[in-house]
């Protein structure tokens, strides 16, 4: 893997002996330091996750008495047993999360590409207007209440799956501009020209030539959209009242929010407070929920990874 990538450019430059040290290669010691740094950095990123896993597998009282540890002092799977009670709820939440992520990401990618492509074409007359149109949304937003009014009273999205897909997530202005730039820089106008000469229509050019050449950027925005959809709890909070329609993230987030809310008011009210807090799932259960919620999204990145490695240097114009 390592040698292959290191050799790829050297072959292109006409060297034939891989053993020869390239002129501009970094020294082995620097290489070692950089590699070590990233190994440590990866560990630092992984540790919290491991800690959460360990906490979810330990006994509640042990955590209270001894604090967190990477290896549980007293093993217990009671937190997961507790979650089994709500299994149908969790599975429903998974269903909603997966549905909104898949539908949302695919349509989001499509809409983004379809908006960005005309903006990248120099011969499109209204380029300036439509670029400004999308840029404007990045700078000014209507705020929550007007947005809520529009989506609930005019589009009637309340308690529908669309409410988890459309508001605030379906099209990201920043990603549109990113994609446009990619099209401008990577797709040479001469390709489009030759396709036109060969008789391809606009749609044929877009789907047959531009999109296949743009897999890296599509993978990038696809990953962004997937993460955004998977981690979104806000739309569930605002637009969903039906408890069977909320997604997994919100289910977990709700517990945290409830706790924060009750704790922040614990002093100032007599009725609520400690009694209500005591009803909340305890520490280990919260950790277990976290692990359950991470599930599939951990696997998403490796899936996109191959496009990042494979594609970024691909061109189509002979120099």
């Amino acid at each position, binding site marked *: 893997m390592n040698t292959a990538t290191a050799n790829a450019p050297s072959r292109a430059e006409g060297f034939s002996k891989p053993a020869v040290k390239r002129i501009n290669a970094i020294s082995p010691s620097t290489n070692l330091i950089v590699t070590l740094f990233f190994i440590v950095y990866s560990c630092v990123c992984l540790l919290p996750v491991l800690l959460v896993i360990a906490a979810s597998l330990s006994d509640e*009282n042990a955590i209270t*008495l001894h604090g967190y540890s990477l290896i549980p002092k007293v093993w217990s799977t009671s937190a997961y047993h507790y979650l089994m009670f709500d299994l149908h709820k969790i599975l429903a939440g998974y269903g909603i999360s997966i549905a909104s992520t898949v539908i949302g990401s695919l349509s989001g990618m499509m809409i983004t590409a379809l908006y960005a492509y005309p903006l990248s074409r120099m011969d499109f007359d209204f380029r300036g207007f439509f670029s400004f149109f999308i840029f404007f949304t990045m700078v000014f937003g209507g705020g929550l209440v007007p947005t809520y009014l529009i989506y*609930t009273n005019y589009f009637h999205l309340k308690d529908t799956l669309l409410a988890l897909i459309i508001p605030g997530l379906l099209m990201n202005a920043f990603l549109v501009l990113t994609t446009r730039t990619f099209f401008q820089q990577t797709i040479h106008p001469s390709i489009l020209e030759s396709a036109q000469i060969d008789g391809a229509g606009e749609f044929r050019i877009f789907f047959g030539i531009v999109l296949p050449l743009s897999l890296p950027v599509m993978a990038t925005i696809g990953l962004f959209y997937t993460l955004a959809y998977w981690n979104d709890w806000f739309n569930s909070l605002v637009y969903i*009242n039906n*408890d069977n329609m909320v997604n997994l993230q919100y289910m977990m987030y709700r517990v945290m929010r409830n706790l924060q809310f009750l704790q922040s008011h614990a002093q100032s009210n007599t*009725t609520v407070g400690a009694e*209500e807090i005591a009803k909340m799932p*305890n520490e280990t259960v919260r950790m277990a929920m976290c692990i359950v919620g991470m599930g599939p999204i951990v696997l998403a990145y490796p899936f996109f990874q191959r496009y990042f490695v494979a594609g970024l240097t691909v061109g189509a114009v002979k120099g």
Partner: protein
Amino acid sequence: MKGFKRSGLTALTTAFTLSLVLSGCGSNNDGGNANSASNADKKNETTTNNANAGTADTGNAKNGTANDSGAESSKLEPYTIKWFVPGAAAQKDQSLVNEEVSKYLKDKINASFELEVIDWGSWDDKMNLKFASSEPFDLLYTAAWNGFTTKITQGNIIDLTDLIDKYAPDAKAVIEPALLEGSKVNGKNYGMPINKEMASQNGIMLRKDLVDKYSIDIASIKKLEDLEPIYDMILEKEPGVTPFYLNKDISLLNVWNTNHFDTYGGSTGGTLPLGSTDFKLIDGLETPEAKAGYELINKWYKKGYVNKDAATLQDLSGGLKAGKAFSYPEQLKPGKDAEVSTQTGQQWVQVELTQPLITTGDTQGSMTSISRTSKDPSRAMMFLNLLYTDKYLVNLIAFGIEGKHFKKVGDNVIDFADGITAQTSGYNLNQAWLFGNQFNDYLWKNEDPQKWEKFKVFNQSAKKDPLLGFVFDPTNVKTEVAALTNVGKEFNSGLQSGTLDPNVYLPKYIDKVKAAGIDKVIAEQQKQLDAWRAANQ
């Protein structure tokens, strides 16, 4: 039917015109016809002998004759009463319970019923959005600590004073007068207080097994200092047990300040010295009494009575469940120890260290208000009237369906239905304090059978806070209040857990509070307080 409708319409029109003429076209935008009818009614009270002011009949406002309720409900248009309350989680069988309530209400007030539980964390956001989008609904939970005054100033909840008199006289007779009085804002009721314990008392919870083991005489504990020898003994004989367990939000200061001040404002407002007659507010942090309180807890911390992580600990219950704590401070009411024992799995006994006190925060601790978006406030009020007086209804809403969610094991005592536990029950909201009249509630098997009697005695014995009914409206000093809250966050947990030395940090605290503008806030409070006293004497 047709004929009736027409005559009803005539009556309504007449009532409406009358009311317009009589009330001098005063504009009132709560519930159109019901309101105008009630206006007409009020005007007619001088002429007709209105012994049945409680009869619910909008279409027939002019003749205040007695009708039996069956005939009445048929005259009312079908209506859906929608009610939002906050809670731990939405209940699986909510719709079943709602159906059951609707069936019951059909004959009474021809209404169907929709209760929706919104979880605590999204309660504020969701309610704000509902008001912003003018979503039609009738009832909601309100409380002093949950933006009650804000909801009033924004006009989101309506004035209930006349509605209560007209449509809920039976409920009014049931509610403790001090509750109804104390929950008034500017002399008007914007919320129906839940009839329950209306005072609060501060004290200490002690672990029963250790109290028994060392045969501690809890009757001899009269003030905080009496605890010291006991704590010394626990420290010595029970290693691993924290004598006085605190988190970042609670402290012995609740007891201390209640006993040393009439009202303690701390860092966020004015303080009323004990026995003050001129109602002059001062900055409480500068008083020697406040300093003495901080010094006491600091002394306890140094002695090792308090857990070391007190200033940062969020959640107390974990430590209580794990048996780490011998005692901790708590807001008390009769039977609080039994409640906490159920929650934590440890047995506790309570020791009261202050006398019961009725404050505005208690009387406005849990209320039901009517939204400005309600299409028929009078019907919502008729429902509330039933809720406070009808034992079957309040228990159905609070505990679910008999035989399905709970079973009766005594005259007034319930347990989970067969084969159901707290976790598997489809309706276990367990928040009876949200609904109407708690004195009509069934009691769980593990509760004190005398609970409600004790509550009544407790309510009777409570002393009224001199500022009962006064609510400070912080609108004019919003910035200062926000700044003071932040200063409080910086110092409070450290000082009240005893972690920080008050000799060093209290002066700093006072300086920062001064810089954040406490004097301006106190002046504003004083102004409102004087106006309130002038209006209420």
